[in-house]
């Protein structure tokens, strides 16, 4: 019986290409799979040609295929468009309409890349999967638990998007780039003559061209014929003064400063949005500070759970430097109260709160 292959999720970018090439070079049996997640030509009117965000383009598939051919591994494109729309796009749109700021990448990791993809790996006889994520996995023999750690390149660390991984998923996953810095990965890609060595990094929200999520929302809602009735409301200050009008709360996110379309003396930021009244409340920077919040649907990763208050560092958006806080249990094991040592700016409902102990990802949940 030959060694079962490792299924590598190949996006056509430099990271996953390097993973496939590294494993193949080590003599492992590798199958390359590209997940077709979204049809970029589906929503007419969205400028796609030359756009920065561009998942699943024909160019990416071409690149991945070329890499697979060069390193001599079997390669296939698998179509998960149906699952992606159901598990990622629709919740993404619904969250925005509900006045929250969602993270589609986490949903994609939870339900597509480490769920549907694992199932596909099983189907083709692969026991393990490997991706180009910057994160590390380690087995803690004492606790008999798989641990998730930040990638050593903190500027590329992707654990913020991976807090939803289960023990079963971690047990079968390889992150070969977790120990490497991005420049080293590019250097490796160059040394192996991979044609994608100099390719630009991909964007965070792959299906939204140029990061213009509001334009994506409008186009998607128009296509599905489900545009909300009221997408028009007032912009008011925290003291109740009306400053102007807007075209729908889904165009705003907490902490946003630009694009408010109102001019006042001091800088104004979005403090909150209300989908029911379609009211956007703005205020000064200080008004964005919050000392505490609750996280729901908490998934414990390196830690098994929370019995007593625990000191941790908590990251409330991807670019946030994790801030010292106390995690407090609530009656509900899947709900945690986070109390910061110092109030944090723009605690945004819908974003993830990920709990760290240094390098270790303890767990994480969704900001209420």
């Amino acid at each position, binding site marked *: 019986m030959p060694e079962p292959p490792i299924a590598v999720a190949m996006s056509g970018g430099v990271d996953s290409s390097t993973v496939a090439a590294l494993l193949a070079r080590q003599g492992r049996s590798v199958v390359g799979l590209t997940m077709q997640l979204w049809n970029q030509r589906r929503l007419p009117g969205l400028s796609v040609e030359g756009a920065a965000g561009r998942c699943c383009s024909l160019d990416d598939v071409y690149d991945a295929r070329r890499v697979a051919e060069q390193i001599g591994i079997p390669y*296939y*494109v*698998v*179509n998960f468009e149906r699952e992606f729309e159901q598990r990622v796009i629709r919740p993404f749109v619904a969250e925005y309409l509900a006045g929250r700021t969602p993270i589609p990448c986490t949903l994609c990791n939870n339900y597509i890349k480490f769920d549907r993809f694992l*199932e596909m790996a099983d*189907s*083709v*006889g692969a026991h393990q999967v490997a991706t180009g994520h910057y994160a590390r996995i380690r087995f803690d023999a004492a606790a008999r638990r798989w641990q998730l750690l930040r990638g050593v390149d903190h500027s590329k660390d992707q654990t913020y998007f991976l807090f939803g991984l289960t023990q079963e998923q971690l047990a079968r996953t390889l992150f070969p780039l977790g120990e490497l810095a991005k420049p080293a990965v590019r250097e490796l890609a160059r040394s192996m003559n991979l044609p994608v060595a100099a390719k630009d990094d991909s964007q965070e929200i792959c299906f939204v061209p140029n990061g213009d999520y509001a334009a994506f929302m409008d186009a998607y809602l128009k296509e599905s014929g489900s545009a909300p009735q009221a997408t028009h409301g007032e912009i008011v200050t925290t003291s109740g003064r009306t400053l102007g009008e807007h075209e729908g709360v889904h165009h705003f996110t907490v902490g946003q400063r630009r694009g408010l379309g109102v001019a006042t003396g001091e800088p104004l930021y979005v403090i909150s949005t209300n989908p029911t009244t379609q009211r956007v409340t703005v205020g000064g920077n200080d008004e964005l500070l919050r000392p505490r919040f609750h996280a729901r649907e908490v998934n414990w990763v390196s830690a098994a759970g929370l019995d007593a208050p625990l000191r941790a560092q908590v990251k409330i958006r991807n670019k946030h430097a994790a801030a010292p806080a106390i995690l407090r249990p609530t009656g509900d094991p899947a709900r945690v109260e986070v109390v910061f040592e110092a109030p944090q700016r723009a605690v945004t409902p819908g974003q993830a709160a990920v709990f760290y102990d240094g390098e270790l990802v303890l767990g994480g949940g969704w900001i209420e």
Partner: protein
Amino acid sequence: MFYFDHNATTPVAPEVLETLAACLGKVYGNASSIHHFGQAAKQRMEAARRQLASLIGCQLQSLVFASGGTEAANMAVLGAVRAAPGGGRHAIVSAMEHPAVLGPCRQLEREGVAVTRLRVSPDGLVDPEDVRRALRSETVLVSVMHANNEVGTIQPIAEIARIARAAGATMHADGVQALGKIPVDVEALGVDLYSMSAHKLYAPKGVGALYIRKGTAIAPIAYGGHHERDRRPGTENVPGIVAFGAAAELAARDLAAETERLAGLRDRLENAVLERISRSGVNGLRGRRTPNTANLHFDGIDGEALVIALDLGGFAVSTGAACSSGAIEPSHVLVAMGLPAERARASVRISLGRSNTEEQVDALVEALANAVARLRRIAGNA
């Protein structure tokens, strides 16, 4: 590796390869040139035209060579509608046509032509009465495929052609999947236009042909030269056409014996699958189809995963038509036949050909049984 995807394409037959190689090496003249080199090329091309004309029972002048089945179908669909007085306002096609027909139809719609897409029965057949009901006074084209690429069903073309032509519409049949697999007689079929592709019958890619009944008007879709009696401009692919001719002759010679052999293999395959694998079935009619095609469903599995698993195990089969990126969409043919989406996604196509043997078919059945069992176990519904 065993190849079971002959409806996608076929390997070039050794006899055809010999002819092709000889022609590629020696016959390099431009068939339009006056000199001996040109004349030699022209002669070889006309010999091939005779071979193909003989296979489908038509006059030599009625055959136009093209770059493949897709170009031939585009010439037929776009050409017939655009040549109609006033530009044509209505066309009728079946919902299970190949994209080579559906694509130009979508373009015609953008140009203001109405297109009716006929439903097909769960057996995979078009009802000629549906054609009659869909006809309008301004209908200029009826296009129905002779044999389907995915399930192999053979449409009642003669009956449909009678109805279409009686109403004054031009009748096109996409014969790409029929040629070389079943007898084709364009006179008996009564069609005005019949498109064909060389690489489905053991000749190389890049060559096709369109039969145009004498007196049928079609507007050109490309401009630039007087080749093929002003019907298809461009220097002819002489080696490819010569190979097409050789393949046509081979098909004529072997058709009866190969039909019987392939039908036997296919029945062996289907019977073994139905007996050994639970919750499996044949999509479409088991009679009245091309002898080499089996479209099977295995409820509870993902056809895409099955194709990949079999490929890794050394067996090449396919699901529905692949899209440009290589990813697989649910088959529009199976959906048109009324299969639930889940079952359409749980289906694969196995298309047999000259090289396949009983031993290969038995090995495939074994691999199918194992892969389906594993996939069902993974999906948790064994």
